[in-house]
């Protein structure tokens, strides 16, 4: 904001006001220095790079390096037998990428992942939003208690959660089927039926992650000025109309954030099938991330890297799509 004003006020040509004057000669053409450098001296530049160097080194060695190495790896035929001499491999071009296009199991995993995102993201967001609205408006007593309660699954170890959920979903003696039996319904074998295994994991993931979205949405709700609601109420709006026309539009940026974060997380869903079903029954809960893990385990390193890059592209694509869909209408 400030810089935009300064630019507007700046007269065309001549010295720029409002700039820090350290080292800035103020007379163009005298020193022959490009104005784009903004008068940073050589010494300052050295100091700047020197200070940034530790971070840059760590970034290059531990972040960019592995990322680029795995990208290079996906164009070779590196397998577990090459462990001792990882550089002695043959480049195979895009063979790995061609191969994954025809991989039936990967297609199955991609479909499972797509379903998981399509069902899971809206469900988690609706549950998170409902909890946030209830905490924001309705429940004033024990608010902290509920906030902690809903957030608890987010910070609980997935292994502990898995054990409990497996007990709940146990077909003969589990709580879910016992409750269904009271109602006269014969519950399915949730995790070992190909039709119910993936939806069961979706519900579990929504339950586990709604607490995080609830906290985020609650913060967003509390930032909406109360006057707007009051004004709408005076104009004769009911609770639903206020929610629809005041809360939701103002919450849009928060919803976008929630959708993006949950979408990224769900596209890479791995822990749920890993601890609950092992990808089964009959690959019905096999996710792309889990398939990558399996291929790494089988020692097909280059193929696994290629799939990982395809998944990365999918994550970027989904995020871009969400930004397009949810951007504010201005």
């Amino acid at each position: 904001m400030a810089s935009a004003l300064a630019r507007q006020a700046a007269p065309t040509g001549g010295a720029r006001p409002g700039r820090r004057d350290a080292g800035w000669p103020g007379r163009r053409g005298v020193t022959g220095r490009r104005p784009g450098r903004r008068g940073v001296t050589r010494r300052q530049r050295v100091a700047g790079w020197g200070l940034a160097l530790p971070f840059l080194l760590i970034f290059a060695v531990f972040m960019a390096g592995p990322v680029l190495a795995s990208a290079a790896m996906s164009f070779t035929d590196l397998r577990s037998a090459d462990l001792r001499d990882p550089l002695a491999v043959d480049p195979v071009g895009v063979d790995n990428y061609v191969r994954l296009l025809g991989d039936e199991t990967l297609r199955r995993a991609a479909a499972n992942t797509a379903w998981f995102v399509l069902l899971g993201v809206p469900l988690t967001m609706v549950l998170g939003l409902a909890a946030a609205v209830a905490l924001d408006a309705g429940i004033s007593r024990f608010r902290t208690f509920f906030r902690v309660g809903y957030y608890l699954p987010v910070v609980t170890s997935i292994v502990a959660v898995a054990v409990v959920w497996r007990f709940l979903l146990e077909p003969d003696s589990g709580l879910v089927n016992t409750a269904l039996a009271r109602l006269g319904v014969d519950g399915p074998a949730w995790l070992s039926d190909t039709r119910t295994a993936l939806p069961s994991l979706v519900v579990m993931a929504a339950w586990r992650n709604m607490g995080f979205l609830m906290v985020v949405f609650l913060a967003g709700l509390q930032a909406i000025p109360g006057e707007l609601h009051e004004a709408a109420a005076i104009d004769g709006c009911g609770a639903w109309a206020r929610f629809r026309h005041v809360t939701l539009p103002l919450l849009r940026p928060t919803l976008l954030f929630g959708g993006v974060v949950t979408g990224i997380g769900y596209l890479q869903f791995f822990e749920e099938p890993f601890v609950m079903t092992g990808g089964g029954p009959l690959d019905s809960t096999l996710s792309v991330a889990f398939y990558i893990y399996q291929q790494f385990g089988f020692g097909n390193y280059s193929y696994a890297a290629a799939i990982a890059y395809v998944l990365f592209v999918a994550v970027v694509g989904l995020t871009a799509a969400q930004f397009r869909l949810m951007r504010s209408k201005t």
Partner: protein
Amino acid sequence: MRHWRQATALVAALALGVTGCGRDDGGPGPGGPAAGGAVAEGKATGEITVWAMGAEGEKLKALADDFTRDNPGAKVTVTAFPFDAAHDKLATAIAGRQTPDVSMMGSTWMGEFAKTGALDPTPPGLFDRAAFFPGAWDTTVVDDTSYGVPWYVETRLIYHRTDLAAKAGVGKPANWQELTAFAKGLKQTGGAKWGISLQPGGTGAWQSFLPFAWQAGADVLADGKFTLDTPQMRTALEYYASFFRQGLAPGQVAPGAQESGFISGDIGAFVSGPWHMSILREQGGAALEGKWDVAPMPREQAGTSFIGGADLVVYRDTDNRDTAWKFVRYLTSPAAQQKLYDLVGSLPAVTATWQSGKLADDPLLKAFGAQLADAKSPPAMATWEQVADVIDDGIERVVRGVTDPATATREMQAKASAIGTGS
């Protein structure tokens, strides 16, 4: 835009850098199986590092102390770690060329790690292969070269409730027909909910299924080619699935449910290894005592069971090859094998150890010893884990009735052939 171009250039440069490498030859791992020289006679000297997993890893120190008492010039450093982390830890060590001198190795990992060229071939003449159970020795052989020595073994028998069997009037099954009748009897007359519990699919189902395949005369591999699509394999798959189709075996087993089901009498029998003896004694208590026994595998073409366990390997990058192999030889001596059994209850891979003591007297242990003489392991190949996954999948499809055995064996054969043996 400029950043993108720079990144693209960087990736291209890296790709070119990789292009500059390339394999030396199409053969096995770097170095190939060039047999090492003989191991020198005399006392062992110098330091070696040994990695071992699980309960054996924790107790190996005691055995190492005995070794250094006999060889005062030698020092053995033992590093123990849990089995879950073992595969990755070994792979990382090989990739980083930071291998120990000796390590324990899961018997089904031999093919994969031998292919990397990191393992030292077993020196000829140092071990007498006839001293070991044949199925155990076979786990060390990759492409006709042995890369290690069996350390301890386990095999699978049929645990069953003798009280329910007596009620049903059925005895230990001698063949497939009798096994079916046995499971039927336990269920219909014996009062069990399920006659027998077999793994219906999922990771590791092959361990449960392959014994039946071997019993039918089928095998995974013959002359370097997969033989998963044979009439014998179809027969075995059909037979395995028949237990589920007839309602004799449960279609799903929750973790821990097998033990509790067996103790309560809901499950009449199950197939498992020696570790279940202590689990049943602990969890069953006095109520279960004298009510169960183990039976050998039924005999059709053969009476083969599965053999598992761990091998000992020496790494090629060792600085002290002689001492490393001497330590392995010590660990596989009958006395050390006996001590390992006394310490952790691991069954000895050396047959001589079974001639005396509890291993020769205890009827349950004797049954395991007898079965070990007819027990097999899948062929050691680099791609075994992946092929095993294909077999697991085929089993599950047939058990669930998604495909018939003929289609399943055809698919298993096609997928396994596409994966190859990695050689």
